[in-house]
């Protein structure tokens, strides 16, 4: 029966873990700019396409 003490404590601890994660996220300024990251994440694919010319010589060297 005393398992409920354990379960509740564990669940509270998990909640506190998320709470700490939230505090850290706020502190690091992640919520200061909520627009730019949403645009930035769409760029990654594009940047990979362009450097093809740059990458090809290095690949040849490796071969």
């Amino acid at each position, binding site marked *: 029966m005393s398992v409920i003490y354990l379960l509740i404590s564990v669940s509270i601890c998990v*909640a506190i873990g998320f709470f700490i994660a*939230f505090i850290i996220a706020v502190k690091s300024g992640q*919520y200061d700019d909520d627009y730019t990251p949403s*645009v*930035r994440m769409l*760029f990654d694919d594009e940047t990979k396409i362009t450097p093809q010319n*740059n990458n090809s010589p290095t690949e040849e060297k490796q071969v």
Partner: protein
Amino acid sequence: MSEQGCFHCGITIPKNEEINFDEKKFCCNGCKTVYEIFSLHDLTCYYDFEKSPGATPQDIAGKYDFLDNDAILTKVLEFQEGNTSIVSLNIPHIHCSSCIWILENLNRIQSGISISQVNFPEKRVRITFKSDQVSLKEIVYLLSSIGYEPYISLENYETGKSNVDRSLTYKLGVAFFCFGNIMLLSFPEYFEIKEFWLDNYKPFFRFLIFILALPSFLYSASGYYVSAYHSIKTRMLNIDIPIALGIIVMFIRSTYDMLMDHGPGFFDSLASLVFFMLLGKMFQIKTYSFLSFERDFKSYFPIAVTRINSDTSEESVPIYDVLKGNRLLIRNQELIPVDGILISEKAEIDYSFVTGEAVPITKKSGDKVFAGGKQIGKVIEMEVLHSVSQSYLTQLWSNEIFQKKVNQKHKTITDKISRYFTPILLLIAFAGFGYWIFIDANIAFNVFTAVLIVACPCALALTAPFTFGNILRIMGKQKMYLKNAIVIEQLAKVDTIVFDKTGTITTNKKSNISYEGKEIDEENLILIKNVLRGSNHPLSRMLYDFLPETIRIKVDDFEEITGKGILASVENQTIKIGSASFLEQSELQSSEIEKTALYIKINDVYLGRFNFKNQYRDGLRTLFSTLSKNYQIKVLSGDNDGERATLETLLPKNTELIFNQKPDQKLEFIKKLQEQGQNVMMVGDGLNDAGALAQSNVGVSISENVNVFSPACDAILDASEFSRLDYFLNLSHNAIKIIKMSFILSLLYNVVGLAFAVTGNLLPLVAAIIMPLSTITIVSFVTFMSNYFSKSNLK
């Protein structure tokens, strides 16, 4: 293909000026160069995200030489240690995803840059660079060369690291954490299951709830205790007193209940109350981070100027080091930072930031030039008369209105209600206590606390934040940007509106050009147009754009006499365009010469003149006639009364027109109106209105480009929406109406709750239902109503 714009910046390319490069069309060499830089570094992706995202790079030679000065450099840099430096630059051109992409890939063009990160809402880029490989000046030049010229002003000189206040976010996070977990743990209590198994764990659950309520009670709600304490100290009853009282009583009663094993207490209601109220606070704060409402002259003025030393060497010095008697060098498009005397032969000074006047003023050698003007054209030299803080314009800021920080000079509508609310609440609580004390002392205490708990004006306190928050967003979408929610209440109270003339009710984008004189035939028109094409004088440019398109002919002889006009010959005809004195036209009346005009003479025959007049904004007449029904309207102008006749025909009869007002006189004028008990809204634009804007109850600044220039004010209105000023005023009235309606609604909830409380029947479950229910209905009511009003007013 000619209807297609420039591949880089998107402007329509004039015929014959098109540059073809790499199968793409460009409007000028500048745009082509940017494209070349990008294609050289494999960055042409820039053009994939957005069509024609670029800006034409401006010529900035010498403009940023001050970045070589170490003293200035350390002030501008955000961080510097060893070889690593960080700088945060404001770039007004940032406007689309292409901008973000190119600015975050700067390291591909300049390897000295390690990281560059864009903050889009603030239009800032934060660049980390290795100072041994690249200097800040080189970075600024690089940015300018690709069309992203940063904006470095005196403001950068003083701001170090800006500290963002995130305490509300933390408080909200804590409150939500406590609220969520307490709700989960109190679930068994709600159903009152008389089960042995659950009853066994009751003390454990209650203990956890108590622990979880502590952070919410002690930390998240702390703002309310502080505010309540201050309001008691200043003897002004505000809404935070009953809130703080309710929370504290709730906590003590609940702790007592829990310890005495009377019941689970009201911890759940407490946590939800704190959470919802903080949420309301958060919602009310809508910041436009790309705008600044606190700007003074510092954000307009450059950080450094070029000083000419006695040995004729040039040196960049911080503006504060400029002393009387120094000689300064002002380049094209540079701002004159101090009052002085012109040494160079001639200057064209654009005072549009100060007065809103579109047409530049010509100054001759020996004339006084005032701080705030922008030199257009050639490099000029001047001698300093006053240091920065003592100049004509900047002295305005020494007025006391800019010194005191007025936090809350107005009583809000919520505070007004709470003046009655708090005493009545205490009266009911004591009456209930007095009644029950003769029957049962125990119940009497319960009733007393229950009244304070249930009457805690949570819904009341939420009404205003949610209404104002929503209205703030609605207005923001329509390009009226308010500083904060209090401005809406102030807008609703306005009874007098004072307009500035130049730049506010007139537009400084285009001038109204009218012609007076003999008719110009086709042949002469071609001559005039072609002669004007060669001139760089601002008036010539304006007239050139105004005249219809003609065929091009070759100008044989062209001479521009500075300060006077143009002398040219085309096909053996001599053409003179310029000022009246240049044309030696004696028959012109001296009073008429004062007007800004270009006179035309062909083959020694006087043809006529083009007058440059300010163009009044569209919809001005309708706006003024609508406004004059409900408001007193006054127009203040820094100019002479030359426009009086035009204005009188344009504006309603009872409009008061006052001319020749200096910046500090404008401020005094507003002050006098306020002393007569009027609530004044000032609508202005330039720096010369800054005093009046600060003094008025609501200062609205009209801005052609909201990102760049606007003096300190309470609201910034995009110039294109000027004619809808009455709509925004109406909306603010409706906001107050909505708040009054929902006050009644929330008071009804209080009556129901009080009925439970005074009869001694307030169970924790009842409180836990009433509080969130009232909150949710109030919030949805005000949101629905404000959206409804914003739409219905549109029609």
